[in-house]
């Protein structure tokens, strides 16, 4: 999807995010970090698969730009 979203995070961990409406994060299913293809100057990404409203949302955080994207939703 790659939609920019507003996320409220504490210590880097998402707690709330807004995608058409407010979602409260109920749990982190999985998280990992990728450095990106640094030789092509790609940015590192922090990836969070969060549980909210009975779905799993995959949020990507780009530390360099401080931006959050909603990458995917699994119902």
């Amino acid at each position, binding site marked *: 999807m790659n939609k920019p979203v507003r996320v409220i995070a504490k*210590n*880097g961990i998402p707690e709330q995010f807004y995608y058409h409406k407010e979602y409260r994060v109920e749990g*982190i*299913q*999985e*998280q*990992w*970090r*990728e*450095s*990106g*293809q*640094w*030789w092509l100057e790609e940015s*590192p990404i*922090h990836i969070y698969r969060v549980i909210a409203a009975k779905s799993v949302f995959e949020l990507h955080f780009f530390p360099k730009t401080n931006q959050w994207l909603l990458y995917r939703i699994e119902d």
Partner: protein
Amino acid sequence: MFIHLHVHSQYSFLDGASSIETYLKKAAELEMPAIALTDHNNVSGAVEFYKQANELGIKPIQGVEITIEGGFHLTLLAENNRGYQSICKILTDAYRLSKNSPSVSWDTLASYKEGLIVLTGCRNSAICQALLRKNFERAKTELYRLLEIFGKKQVYLEMINTFLPRTTFLLDALYELHKYTDIPLVATNNVHYAVQENYTIHDLLTCVRTKTNVDDIHPERPLNSENYLTSIDEMQRRFKRYPQALETTLEIAERCEPALNLGKNLFPKFDLKDGSDSHSFLRNLVWQGAKKRYSKLTQPIINRLEHELRIIAKLDVADYFLAVWDIVQFAKTKQIRYAGRGSAADSAVAYCLEITNVDSIGRGLLFERFLSLERAQKPDIDIDFDARHRDEIAHYVYKKYRKDHVASVCTFSTFHARSALRDLAKALDYPQDVIEGLVKNIPGYTPADGIEDVLKRLPELKGHPLHSPRYKYLLTLCTAINGFPRHIGTHLGGLVISGEPLTNVTPLQLSAKGVYITQFDKRTIEDLGLIKLDLLSLRTLSAVKEVEPVLKQQGKSYDDIPLDDQDTYQMLNNASSVGVFQLESPAQRSLQARLHADNIEDIVASVALIRPGPIKADMVEPFITRRHGLETPTYLHPKLKSILAKTYGVVLYQEQVIEIATEIAGFTPGESDRLRRAMTNYRSQKELERIGEQFVTKAIANGIEPKVAKEIFAYILSYAGYGFCEAHAAAFSDTAYKTAYLIRHYPSYFFAALLNHQPMGFYPPNTLIVHARQRGIKILPLDILASEIDFTADENSIRIGLKQVRGITADELQSIIDERKIRPFSSLADFIKRTSVNKDVIDNLILAGAFDRFNNNRRSLVWQTATLIKNRKNSLFLEESDFSGIEDFSDWERWLNEYRVLQLSSSKHIMDFYRPYLEKQNVYTSKELQKATPMEGKRVTVAGLVIRPHRPPTRSGKTVVFLSLEDEYGLLDVTIFENVYRRFSKEIFNFPLLKVTGKLALQGKLATIIADYIQPLST
């Protein structure tokens, strides 16, 4: 609180991107009181780690990450020295099974479990792999396996949170396993680099190690940059859910005691059958030897020997001397030629034991340069052996002391400029031709962080592609890996012998050469209590040995060569020393031409003078001037006269610096040697000032005027770093002079011997051939019936040996000789029929002229080989076809083919082909100019084959290139100053044949050219 217990340094070859020093400084910055080092399957960093950590007040915990059966990883920490010994034995066993992919069996773990704390390992561990596969039962089984061997108290479940996919799942599963088994959790970060920014270096090293490039996907490249030395805060964030795992790290750190016992003496007691003690036995041997060496034992000799024996006893190193004595005795019984070298030649005991051949008492050499109570370092004796038999000597040592008590010392092959450029450019997926272009012309000695410097300094690199901004990042990366070890190898001659099994202090592994090596190199091996001896190969001694039968026939011996043969000195003074050990380089020949040596002391000084240090310190000219009495030496104090008179007031030797400090400042010789070392190795201006103050204060107390004391200190300071060990120079000069004698009196035999033991010396084989020919020796061509395997000689000629043919194998050589013994070959066909020499080698033999006696038309012979070879097995008789109508190779082609195959020519020199054309251009030959005294100062042009262009350090710091031009008559040395070098750098380093114009200068009898114009001589 948190302690890092899983850290990989640069000794995890190509998998650790930070040095031990960097990690320790970072740990200090993070206020961590302890840290563990756990490299892959080695403990090479242990001594460095231990010493540096202690200096910073950080507790070093020694560990290792091993690979166990199945390829799984396991982390082991030494709880104490017993645990460290267990690690050494485990690793030795692992490498025994497979030298390239060490693997620890469960039996080995069970055998050597003492003193070990086990962390269950990273994602590549058996437990984590099972959990990731959701096989909880399997994970339990693996854990129980460890518990059965090590016990509950020694095992911890290792948790790593570096934000790889499924880490949350894995940590939860490990937690479940912990709850089920009650085995405590411990957090690590599986560190591979000190700071996150170093991740790119680590990723590139991974590419180098896995032979992939950055665009390749590989399981060892998860593109995750979280394996750095994280702070306590960061670890608290990562382990918010499992804080107990952080606490455990402290508990483990507190359990661990120092793993290494440094400073012991592990040298074995010498096996004395009669039950006497080593020192008494040594004393007896020394006095027996002294009676042989000295016609009369005067009081000074007795005093000196007693003095040395006292120090040897106090340092408890008699066994070492006896071991070395025993080795040289073995060499003598086997008639293997040897020569002790280095500072051991400062020892009269070594002289009496016939370990060295330098009379240190007669020369006034200081024992303390070699061994002293103040320095309290272990002795280190180096011995050169006939290269052919060096391994036989090593084998004797292994057999005598048992193979688990003897090993070769390792060496680390580290990244330099060329290897860094190649490996990193390949990892970045540059095309091969681009990589070759980047590496081209970068001097081999350039460090990886010195590329920008050489690009700026060397004019021949002016248009080099690395100047382009697109490679700036590549150069930064090269700098980052400068000096990183790439792989482990074998030190050329270093051996350690231990009184207890070596695996008590170091793992042993099989090197590529098939010998067992320690995991510590010469810098740290002695800290473990081991003493190194260097058993080196010297091909010069092999060449000497080959000539000895000729001397023997005349009732002479090499050892009794008189040291005052004026014919030999005359030859050296004529700069005719190509082939002479240590005295053949252009700089040495130039020195000999000016020095006019007429005694062995001049040779000793020569060996010491032509070194970067004395040249930079401007010692050469003053020495020569004063040697000829053209300048009177002056001495800052009368006490310096007796010390410096033998070198005409020039401080040439390190021993002289020691003597001066002793005489002037009243230091003991041992303290003086320590002072000398401090003066050469000082780390700051402040430290140097402190050393200076100490010297001056003591000098004043010794009755020296303050101003003079300061002047003397400044004087010796300027030379301290450049002085050469006199004992070493004396040891080398013995061989240097005697090889000069052999060249003067047995030239054909000695040149043949030198040719038989290539590669060696300063010059290539063809230069030796040219010089042999210059001395009137006939060079006989390769001949399939007359040539032996080796070069052979009689009084007037040298026959080229079959082994010189490119590509010929030892088996092929032997088959030729064996067949020839039965019946000489009658034709090429006969040769092909009766031998199984391969086609390429047959062609090479033809092109080198081996079959000229049967048919001088080499082209026609080459044309026939394919058919003859095809039919060699099927036909009873092989017959050559008639290709007589075919035109042979031209003269030039014949010469070129022969040179390509043999790397030398028996008949002509390449310059013979150019000479008619050069004569018309008034180009001189080397022969003409050597006799051209009236032309001194005039501008002349010469031409020749470029030999060994090089840029040694100079007094002025400017670049000067020296090279020799070889023509059909010999060598002409050329000096190219910086301004000319900058104009013609490309020509100098890229063309094999040059025409050089410049001023003719005469240095004694040696003609040289100071170049001002250089152009290639086209082929």
